[in-house]
């Protein structure tokens, strides 16, 4: 099915199972250790350990591997001298490793040591002696803005957009805001490290690997290793978080595959926590300038957003932080521009709502600054700039309930108790403030296929190469099939995480549930037609329930119908709806923080997110997703900061003791997420929209605005750490 028109009434509307707050079907496996992750797959395997480049730019002058090779248990020390020739491309197309003596970023693998045990491999890895000829590189984004260029990202939106005449309108606007914000380098910090077990069966490769998009990964691996796609199988039934860090293929997979082919034995590798920071991708830092010009009532006449981010010279991927600015608020004159600075640091790529997560940290604080200048309530300012249609594309929104989210949130949160003047509220030693932010995230749909089969034992089996990265995909797929086929949850089996199953979008960009769920919806729909045909009933009036198909008085058990089993396929593709409608999910974040009057420590006191994101497929897993996103918003606002040392071109704090994400104590008990009822007739057959990343979008800005409201510190360089707040604190009595 292509998404070309309104969905209309369908079999999910009954919401007997879909939407219910059901526990995860894989929950028990996870808490009992029954869910096996890539590195836990048992095979008589050898163990690999990566040797990273300890310079950021230059050439390998010499590599001495003899000592390592003679070290106990060592089977292989692979370097560029003996690595095979591999296919090339940007980091989303290919991931060649050990390609030559050139080092293009810190931590790039320069050798791969394989031994009988992990400990032997690790010990030997330290014995590989590499000498380098260093070259001068460019590392820190702020130092090299002059080198910025216009990126051309093939799978991304155009770097620039312009509507009307921004500069004239801005110059003539009676009220102006012109502010710059910066966001730091960030690392995904997922729980499970990148890991792969590679097994060759003749010329066929099986990779048990932590990867969010298996079919995409399959293509990258085939291209990199120069082998036919059909010879590559990726298996990944459980993934311990990814946040974008496992969207693409990383060095662990390719190194294990090459070494395993060479040694004719399975090879297993997991990156260490420290290695993940340099060997895999991260989010670029950004420098953003926002200009808002309004009339005296706060109606936007001109809105401009300029973004700088960095990446390796060979890459085009940029942090699309101005994307939401193209559709969030009304205004006739608009200008957004992304510029990319070539830097010699590891590849920057997608992380937790790429674009919006950091773009809203700037835009939504600038809106707060504007509201203050206009002496308007921040929510009222947003209401005044609520657009009737997409202000750049001039097309309707598929559905948009931002104002409802703001108003409902304000009511629940007690927004009317906020003092509009900063620094007015105290609670003991805490200066207390409230902040609000809008949230929005694009709603993409991607090609996916599914197969569903009903067997004579009454079990329906769903098959697709989808992944569950901890979000609850197993559960929502089971719910969709159960609802469509009139089966109890316990009669649905979901087989995902393997490229032997039909191609699916995978998990990323908030497209996973919608894309895979819609393909499954279509497969179930086709199966219903087949079953109706077998029962001699009209599929349009037949009712599926309790394992039966029924029309009027007649009811037939499905198990009697299916013979040796009946199956059907389904498929979803984006269509005209994806051009003709502006599709986003929306939300509003409310935060209350305390700022310690003496030390400037910022602690979140309570937080609420109200979202409108189409049909909620499972109220429990949806809430978990939203809350998880909001917690990441806390981190983005207050904690996360991957520090670059420009002398070495590396990330100094590359471990979880010093790269801070929020811990339990940072998250108050009062952190809640609410979904407003919404059905989106244009998004997909489920009428749902992406919620995977919505929770983070705007969350950090609400916190930053609350910090300002608490103590008057408007911190424009994230994260908001106490050293930046100190100067704004009141004198001590």
């Amino acid at each position, binding site marked *: 099915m292509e998404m070309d028109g309104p969905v209309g009434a369908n079999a999910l509307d009954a919401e007997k199972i879909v939407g219910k707050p059901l526990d995860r079907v894989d929950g028990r496996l996870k808490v009992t250790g029954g869910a096996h992750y890539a590195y836990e797959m048992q095979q008589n395997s050898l163990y690999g350990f990566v040797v990273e480049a300890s310079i950021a730019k230059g050439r390998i002058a010499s590599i001495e591997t003899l000592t390592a090779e003679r070290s106990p248990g060592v089977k292989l020390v692979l370097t560029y001298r003996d690595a095979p020739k591999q296919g090339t491309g940007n980091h989303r197309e290919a991931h060649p490793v050990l390609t030559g003596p050139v080092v293009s970023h810190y931590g790039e693998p320069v050798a791969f040591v394989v031994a009988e045990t992990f400990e032997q491999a690790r010990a030997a890895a330290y014995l590989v002696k590499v000498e380098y000829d260093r070259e001068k590189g460019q590392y820190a984004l702020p130092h090299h803005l002059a080198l910025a260029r216009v990126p051309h990202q093939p799978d991304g939106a155009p770097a620039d957009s312009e509507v009307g005449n921004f500069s004239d309108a801005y110059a003539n606007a009676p009220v102006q805001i012109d502010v710059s914000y910066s966001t730091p380098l960030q690392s995904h910090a997922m729980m499970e490290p990148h890991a792969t077990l590679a097994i060759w069966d003749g010329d066929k490769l099986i990779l048990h690997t932590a990867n969010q998009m298996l079919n995409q990964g399959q293509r990258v691996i085939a291209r990199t290793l120069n082998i036919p796609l059909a010879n590559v199988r990726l298996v990944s039934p459980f993934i311990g978080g990814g946040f974008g860090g496992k969207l693409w293929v990383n060095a662990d997979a390719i190194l294990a595959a090459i070494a395993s082919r060479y040694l004719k034995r399975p090879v297993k590798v997991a990156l260490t926590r420290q290695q993940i920071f340099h060997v895999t991708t991260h989010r670029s830092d950004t420098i953003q300038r926002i200009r808002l010009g309004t009339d005296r009532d706060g109606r936007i006449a001109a809105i401009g957003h300029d973004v700088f981010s960095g990446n390796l010279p060979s890459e085009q991927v940029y942090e699309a932080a101005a994307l939401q600015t193209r559709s969030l608020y009304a205004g006739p004159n608009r200008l957004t521009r992304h510029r990319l600075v070539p830097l010699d640091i590891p590849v920057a790529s997608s992380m937790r709502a790429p674009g919006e997560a950091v773009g809203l940290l700037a835009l939504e604080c600038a809106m707060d600054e504007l509201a203050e200048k206009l002496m308007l309530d921040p929510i009222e300012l947003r209401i005044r700039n609520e657009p009737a249609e997409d202000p750049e594309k001039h097309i309707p929104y598929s559905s948009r309930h931002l104002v409802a989210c703001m108003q409902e949130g304000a009511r629940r949160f007690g927004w009317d108790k906020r003092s509009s003047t900063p620094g007015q509220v105290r609670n003991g030693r805490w200066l207390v403030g409230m902040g609000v932010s809008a949230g929005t995230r694009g709603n993409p749909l991607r090609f996916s296929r599914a197969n569903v089969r009903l067997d004579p034992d009454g079990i329906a089996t769903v098959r697709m190469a989808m992944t569950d990265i901890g979000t609850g995909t197993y559960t929502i797929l089971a719910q969709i099939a159960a609802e469509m086929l009139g089966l109890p949850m316990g009669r649905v089996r979901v087989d995902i995480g393997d490229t032997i199953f039909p191609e699916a979008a995978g998990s990323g960009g908030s497209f996973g549930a919608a894309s895979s769920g819609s393909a499954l919806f279509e497969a179930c729909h086709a199966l219903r037609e087949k079953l109706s045909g077998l029962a001699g009933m009209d599929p349009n009036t037949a009712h599926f329930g309790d394992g039966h198909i029924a029309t009027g008085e007649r009811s037939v058990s499905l198990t009697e119908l299916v013979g040796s089993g009946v199956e059907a396929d389904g498929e979803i593709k984006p269509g005209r709806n994806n051009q003709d409608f502006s599709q986003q999910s929306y939300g509003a974040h409310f935060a209350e923080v305390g700022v310690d009057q003496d030390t400037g420590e910022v602690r979140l006191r309570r937080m609420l997110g109200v979202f409108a994101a189409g049909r909620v497929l499972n109220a429990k897993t949806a809430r978990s997703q939203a809350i998880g996103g909001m917690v990441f918003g806390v981190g983005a606002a207050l904690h996360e900061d991957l520090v670059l040392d420009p002398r070495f071109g590396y990330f100094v704090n590359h471990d979880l003791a010093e790269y801070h994400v929020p*811990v339990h104590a940072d998250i108050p008990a009062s952190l809640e997420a609410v979904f407003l009822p919404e059905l989106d007739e244009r998004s997909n057959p489920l009428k749902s929209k992406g919620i995977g990343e919505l929770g983070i979008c705007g969350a950090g800005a609400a916190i930053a605005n609350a910090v300002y409201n608490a103590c008057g510190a408007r911190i424009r360089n994230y994260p908001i750490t106490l050293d930046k707040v100190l100067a704004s604190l009141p004198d001590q009595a």
Partner: protein
Amino acid sequence: MKAFSYERARSVADAASAASNPGVKIIAGGTNLLDLMKLQVETPSTLVDINRLPLDKIDETSEGGLRIGALVRNSDLAADQRVRQQYGVLSRALLAGASAQLRNKATTAGNLLQRTRCYYFYDITKPCNKRVPGSGCSALAGFNRIHAILGGSEACIATHPSDMAVAMRALDAKVEAIDREGKARTIPIADFHRLPGRTPEIESALASGEIVTAVTLPPPPPGAQMYRKVRDRASYAFALVSVAAIVDSAGGRIRSARLAFGGLAPKPWRVAAAEHSLTNTAAGANSFDAAADAVVEGAHGYGSNDFKIPLTRRTLHAVLGEITRT
């Protein structure tokens, strides 16, 4: 991690004699040592495991203090009734450190002897005088948010990361050690940790082979006790600045004060002049400011840690205000 051999010590003397050989390291909770070994910052050829030695008791001393065995776990020490009632500053400092899981493993001696968290120290590809004497200090002109503003040297500005030791410093604890000959000695905590000077690789007063057997606390000093830890997140982060305060005051007058600081220096830091300046004074902004002046006198920031100077002042001010009100 380099391959190593493993031995279990049968007695303290046994451990001390083994530990005097080059390449031998004592392992207690292992929460710091093992991390460093995985990164090849520490490369012992032999580990001597002391976990089965009978050093895990907390006993009352004849003077009315406590003797804490070297192997008492941080969680057990923090939870001990006597510690909670009489040495609240110690209990609070312990609970402000690390995480519950780590505290269950971490020991008293291991905590005292844990090594700095300087980022560059943890990465063997970076110059670091503490790890490789003479190789240079990467932190001086690098990222030094968590580094010292007091007591450092041109060779090293690393801080000692312990919370527990800061409280012990305020309590005037004494460290008991035994050498390979079985000779015991007592080292005041003030002298236990060494300043870097030109030899940042030497961190404590222990001689090679000397084993810590216990820490003794004198009877609890008069006054209220408090531990305040300022950090980048609410838990599971090392102190940017911490203050262990024991202040005897009544009716707005301070009789005596003891102040020890973490996060500022290569060792738990005390400034006698600051404490003297508070003796027999009226609690208030003037006396607090004078004490703060004395604490940060000579303090020096290195860029990313400049904020610690005003932060120290403000934190001390807040602590003194609170403790003299209670």
